[in-house]
């Protein structure tokens, strides 16, 4: 009997829900309310703990037929990791260099990562989309819709 991905997920969720359940019992009660602030979270966490435990059990009892493996389409997780890293860098850069600079860098970098340009023309298109996205969104939001966008601590704009 071996534990699978669902079982591990269930175990993690079970541990987290038990930890938070204990924390919910430690919340102070209020004299004017018959049930304290931990009452409802305790119900939710009990449901989560019970469902997680059942998920572990289900995973342990499951007999996976060979068909389970299936003919899944080829997937590239490398691109997903790169995309998340670029989004993370964008979020870090936003308050430092401001919306306009960060957006040009972000759109350009992500486009290049998802489909690397081969010719000078393709690089030109990439740069135009990056600049265009930053400029159009800046003008539409800041000038037309009066929605303030992040300013850069380093650049001052």
């Amino acid at each position, binding site marked *: 009997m071996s534990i699978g991905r669902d079982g591990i997920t269930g175990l993690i969720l079970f541990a987290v829900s038990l930890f938070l359940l204990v924390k919910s019992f430690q919340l102070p009660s209020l004299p004017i309310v018959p049930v304290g602030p931990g009452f409802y979270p305790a119900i*939710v966490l009990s449901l*989560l703990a019970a469902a997680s435990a059942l998920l572990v059990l289900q995973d342990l009892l499951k007999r996976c037929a060979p068909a389970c493996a299936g003919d899944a389409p080829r997937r*590239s997780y490398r*691109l997903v990791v790169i995309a998340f890293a670029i989004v*993370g860098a964008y*979020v870090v850069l936003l308050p430092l260099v401001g919306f306009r600079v960060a957006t040009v860098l972000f759109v350009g970098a992500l486009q290049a990562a998802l489909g690397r340009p081969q010719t000078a023309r393709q690089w030109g298109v990439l740069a135009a989309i*990056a600049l265009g996205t930053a400029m159009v969104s800046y003008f539409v939001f800041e000038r037309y*819709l*009066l929605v303030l*966008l992040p300013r850069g601590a380093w650049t001052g704009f």
Partner: protein
Amino acid sequence: MLDLLWNGLINIAQWKYLLPLFAGTFIGVIGGSLPGVTITMTVIVVLPFTYGLDPLAGLAAMTGVYVGGSTGGLIACCLLGIPGSPSSIATTFDGFPMARNGEPGRAIWLGVWASVWGGLLGALFLVFLTGPLAAIALEFGPWEYFSLFVLAMAMVAGLSESSLLKGLISTAIGLLITVVGHDPIGSVPRFTFGSAFIGGGFPFLPVLIGIFAFAQIMTDLEKLNSPRGQAAESLVGVKLERFSHLKVNLEIFKQPFLLAWATIVGLIIGILPAIGGSASSVMAYDQAKKFSKTPDRFGKGHPEGIIASEASNNANVSGSLMTIMAFGIPGDAVTAVMLGAMTIHGIQSGPLFISQNPDIAYGIYAAYILAHPCMLLICLALMPLMLRVTSVPMAVLAPVVLVLCVVGAYALNNTMQSVYVLLLFGVVGYVLVKLGFPLAPLILGLILGDQIEINLVRAIMTDANPWLFLTRPISGLLLLAAATSVGLAIWQHWRHQKRIAEEAPDF
């Protein structure tokens, strides 16, 4: 009522509302026609543009996106053989074969016109039934509301594609997110661990945008290097044959029962919380096949399949709008975003919404009705553009959509905290999808969490007897329906497993 509707139509016909409605419908049609871009993602992209607008203008734009997106999806169905949006999935079954048989124009326009008529028939129900539904909801006490929300979550968890258990866990995670921060009754901080970042709880919209948009985009990026569905057979760039709009309409109206039944199926699925357009189009398609005199022609380019699917998915929009306006429960993820937009503008949806905000309520009805002719005009004028738009690469779309997601989150409070929440829940959403957890129950839990807690505590504060949840007739019936829904889901799962076991060969 008709006076109010007339005023609503006149109101929406002003440029300040008509322009956002038209723009929203256009963006919806384009977003819907792009494979991999769902209506939810399109409405998320449009959301930040609505912050600076008048509430009705913003809601009109979103209604336009919803209607346009529900129709736009059929273009990719007919030309690529893959649905532009999940709600038009059943259109692929007959739209693509009909297009391959040399009638792409007939396939697309049958779908567009069926969408228009299905949507407008749905509008009748929206206008005349939302008020009575809200009146019923007004009779509800905290017990009934609590039970109604439990029913909504039980249905969504039970209808999860993966498993009931994962649906329930997803619901509980959604509810858990809402308990972080100060409790709604006594403002006691819960699970904040002294952190200022989560001290105020997680803002709803950045969580929603993060979970939905990131999960969708990142899942699409995984497949970026693999061939796109049936692209080898795709008809991108094809010129539409000459055909008559009159004939297409006659073809639809020759089967009034099909049109009416598909509309009703779509409407009912729309009213039931968070089941969504894909279920409505598939169910209407299935019903059309069962009632058809020529069921063997389905899947080979049969017009009845296209009519049923498209009429149903547009009527589904009116059902979802009914639920949000009468009960304050989002019918699906798109109306969840609309609910968030309403909250930003200080509008409380629910049974009192129509009586307290008649201008906005009838404005939404009018926007929904006018979105259909707008969508038709856009399709008539810009069909050549839409035929090409299906080939826009994901490498261009993804960065632009992500920028708009970040703007949408930031512009909520003009703080980076919302952007951090967006990124955090983007990762959470993607991980949950990869682990096979459905996102719809999580979102419903997230939306209803506060209301469930408030109504539960209110009910206990009014009368501590817990049996009232079962003994009050409406509340008891709703809880019984919730239990039945879970029971049915377990039974269906068990039957499915049994069938698989029976069909599996003995080794």
